[in-house]
Every structure is written in structure tokens, then in C-alpha cells.
């Protein structure tokens, strides 16, 4: 195929790959090998977008979740509208709205934010992903705050803590721990959702796969490589969270090893 000019044939494995690619396999491994650095850069974009949006969304969701959990007289309703809107609509359209839509307004195009941020695909993706993950995280953090055991709250009050101290030292740490299993799903959802970046011209992992598909008109090479890379990332993240759960939720585990009594992995789908 397109790679005959630059096939490294020094090693036996190289020889074997060339032989297989040229004669037997429907997949051209050499093409993937030649473009591996592109895929690595793509992985960097994917990870950047995923983790930055999770970080920003995570910071944003704490005040929002508190406002929802304690039914703040003013903020509860607007925050509910925000989470309902972002949870009830597709992430793809939210991203399109920001990236393609904002240019419709004269005010936006003339503002100082237009040049560096709002006309830039990377920033638009980051903002859309951040708002989306903030909406989902707010709701399950709210659930975790509401289910704080009464005893913990009463003990905090009895110790004379102020409301702010109680939230900071008792309620939030306890809620974070209970939200951790759900959060591991959220991280994987966000990684899966980040493929939407490739629809607004960004070269994330799938973006590189689509580029390869468009350039050589080959279906498998780009998409199967992307598939394998996403699977590796997902399994690495799940393992990391298993470890964290053991570490932070150790006190909730039964004494003997019983795999069924841990907080069950939610069987929820992962697409926005």
C-alpha cells in the first residue's frame, strides 16, 4: 500500500509486519506504525480535553451541588435549569452551539474574547465539555451530600462547628467518598464524549483516525487504532479508580473479601 517507501526492515519483527501487511492482513500495520506519532499527539489532545474539563467541571460543581442540596432560596432553581438543560440534550449539539453558533452575534464577534477563545475549536470544546460534566457531577454530588448520615452532621453541630466548617470538614469529604464510584463512570463518559472534539476539526485520537480514513480511504487502520487506544485509556482509568476506591473507601469494605458487597458498578451507558 502507501508505505512501501519507508518500511523499516532491519528487524525480524519489521520483516514479518511488512510481509503480513502486504500479503495477508486486511490491515496495513506499517501505515499505523508510520502515523503512530500523530496518534500519540491525538491522545495528548484527548487527555488534555478530558482531564481539564473534568478538573474545571469538578471545581464548578461544588458550589452548584451545595446550592441544590441545601435548596438555596435563589440559586436552587437556576442551577436545576442548568443541569436539566445540559443533561437532557446531546453534547454534540451543545458543542456545535458554542463553536458554530456564537459567531452569529455581532457582539460576540467584536468582543475581546472572540479572537483567542470563542473562535477557537479547542476552547469551545473545553467550555462545552466543562459545562456538560459540571451538570452531571452537580447532580450526583447533590445526591451524595443529601445522603450524608445524620449522625455525622449532628456530631459536627455538637462539636460547635460553624456551617462553613461543617461543610468543609465533614460534609464534603464524606460526600466525595460516596460519590467516587459514580465519578469513575463520569470520567469514562467524559473520555468517550471527548470524541466529539473530532467533529469540530480537532485532531484528537478519533480526529487522527478520521484524517487517516479521509487521506488514504481506508476504514480499518485509523478507526481500529483509535478503538484500541481508547480501550487502553478506559482500562487504565478503571484500574486507577479501583485502586482509589480501595484507598478511600477502605473503611466501608466488609472485613472478609467479598466481591459483591462493594458499591456496585453502575450499568449506565456512556454517551451524551
Amino acid at each position, binding site marked *: 500500500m502507501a508505505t512501501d517507501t519507508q518500511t523499516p526492515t532491519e528487524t525480524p519483527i519489521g520483516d514479518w509486519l511488512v510481509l503480513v501487511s502486504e500479503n495477508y492482513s*486486511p490491515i496495513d500495520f506499517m501505515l499505523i506504525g508510520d502515523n503512530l506519532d500523530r496518534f500519540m499527539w491525538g491522545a495528548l489532545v484527548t487527555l488534555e480535553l478530558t482531564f481539564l474539563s473534568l478538573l474545571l467541571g469538578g471545581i464548578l460543581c461544588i458550589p452548584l451541588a451545595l446550592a441544590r442540596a441545601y435548596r438555596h432560596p435563589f440559586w436552587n432553581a437556576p442551577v436545576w435549569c442548568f443541569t*436539566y*438543560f445540559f443533561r*437532557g*440534550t*446531546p*453534547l*454534540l*449539539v*451543545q458543542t*456545535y*452551539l458554542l463553536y*458554530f*453558533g*456564537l*459567531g*452569529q*452575534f455581532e457582539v460576540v464577534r467584536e468582543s475581546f474574547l472572540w479572537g483567542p477563545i470563542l473562535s477557537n475549536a479547542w476552547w469551545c470544546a473545553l467550555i462545552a465539555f466543562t459545562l456538560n460534566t459540571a451538570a452531571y457531577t452537580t447532580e450526583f454530588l447533590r445526591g451524595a451530600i443529601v445522603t450524608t448520615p445524620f449522625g455525622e452532621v449532628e456530631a459536627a453541630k455538637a462539636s460547635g462547628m460553624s456551617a462553613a466548617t461543617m461543610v468543609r470538614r465533614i460534609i464534603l469529604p464524606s460526600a466525595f467518598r460516596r460519590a467516587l464510584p459514580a465519578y469513575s463512570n463520569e470520567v*469514562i463518559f467524559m*473520555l*468517550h*464524549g*471527548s*470524541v*466529539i472534539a*473530532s*467533529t469540530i476539526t480537532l485532531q484528537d485520537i*478519533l480526529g487522527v*483516525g*478520521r484524517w487517516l*480514513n479521509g487521506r488514504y480511504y481506508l*476504514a*480499518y487502520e485509523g*478507526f*481500529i487504532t*483509535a*478503538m484500541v487506544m*481508547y*480501550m487502553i485509556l*478506559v*482500562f487504565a482509568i478503571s484500574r486507577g479508580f479501583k485502586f482509589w476506591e480501595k484507598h478511600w473507601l477502605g473503611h466501608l469494605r466488609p472485613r472478609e473479601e467479598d466481591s459483591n458487597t462493594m458499591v456496585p458498578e453502575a*450499568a*449506565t*451507558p*456512556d*454517551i*451524551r
Partner: protein
Amino acid sequence: MEAIFDYRQLLLDGTLVTIRLAIVSAMLAVVLGLIGAWAKLSKSRAAQTAAGAYTTLIRGVPDLVLMLLIFYGGQTVLNNIGDTTGLWGYVEISQFTAGVGTIGFIFGAYYTETFRGAILAIPVGQIEAAKAYGMMPWQIFTRVIWPQMVRYALPGFTNNWLVQLKSTALVSVIGIQDLVYNAFGAGRSVRQLFTFMFAVLVIYLIMTAVSDAFLRWIDRKYSAGVREA
């Protein structure tokens, strides 16, 4: 706003395509989910492994990647198989079929988990009692398992359906003329993409709100007779 009114027919057509796609793929996914749940709970080692591989694969790979792979690669695979075995001639997968197939295939994995959990929630004693009465496996399924499975599976089903409805927006990427695709085309031609994308968001919000309300109603119906504290 007038632009939206001018293009209302296009938006309506797109909405109908989206709804049809969501419903057909949900039916496919439910069938796959039942098969998957049966395989996971069966005694056959091979069936368990296959179903496990299926759910793991779907959990690991983003939907759009699978969709593009099936859309661009699936046809070649089918035609290669047809050529080698001589079972069928040249087939062409339409965009709609690829979209339904992919979304159904992906959500089948989530329904597998939902149904597996629901079947496990049914007390074993009831199934044993049905066997003791001499019911056939099919009778046990329709009379004992199914009515209760629906009850236990409904919350998970509602969640899956809402996510699936939203994920149909992705099919616009492979060129199906759904709501997003049509609205994007219209919005671009009148240079009002914000207005049109916002309209799409509102339509999706209406669809999710209506199906949420409907499924809650069904939940109440099937939960008749459940004791509440």
C-alpha cells in the same frame, strides 16, 4: 425566529427521522440485551465469555468510533464474506441501517447489564416453583420472569433510553438527515446557526422530557402491587 418557521418542514422531517432511528435501534438493542443477559446467566462457558467480551468492548470504545468503523468498514467486511462464501452478492449498507445497527449494537450491551440485574432480582424460589409446576422454559419466561423483569428493569431502561435518544445526534456525522443534520444545513444557509442549534436543543429537551414522563407512567403501572414504605 422567522427562519425557524420557514424551515419548519425540514426540522420536522429531521425530528421524525431521529425518533424513528431511536425507536428502531432501541428495539434492536432490547433484543440484543435479552440475548446478552441470557448468555451471561447461562451455564455455557462460551456464551458467558462472548457476552462478557461484548459488554467490555462497548464499555471501552466511544460510540462515534464504532459508528464510523461500522459505517466505513462494515460494508467491506460483509462483501468480503459474501465473496468468499458465495452466500450473498454485493450488498450496500444504507446510512440509516448503519446508524440503527451501530446504536442498537452499542446499547445492546447496556441493556444486557440492565436485564441481567433485573433477572437476578427475581427470587429464585419463584422460578423453582414454576419448574416444580412443570412449566416449560418458555412458559417460565413469559409468566414468571418477564412481568417482574419489566418492573425491575424499568429504571435502568429509562436511563438507557434517554441516553440513547441523545446519542442519535451522532448519526448526523455519517450523513443521515436527522434533526441535527437538517438544522445544521438550514442554519448555515441563513447564517443563523445559533438559533437553529438552540432550536435543536429545545426539541431534544422536549423529547427527553416527554419520554421521561411516559416511562414514569409505565413504571407506576408495572409497580402496582409493590409495597411502599
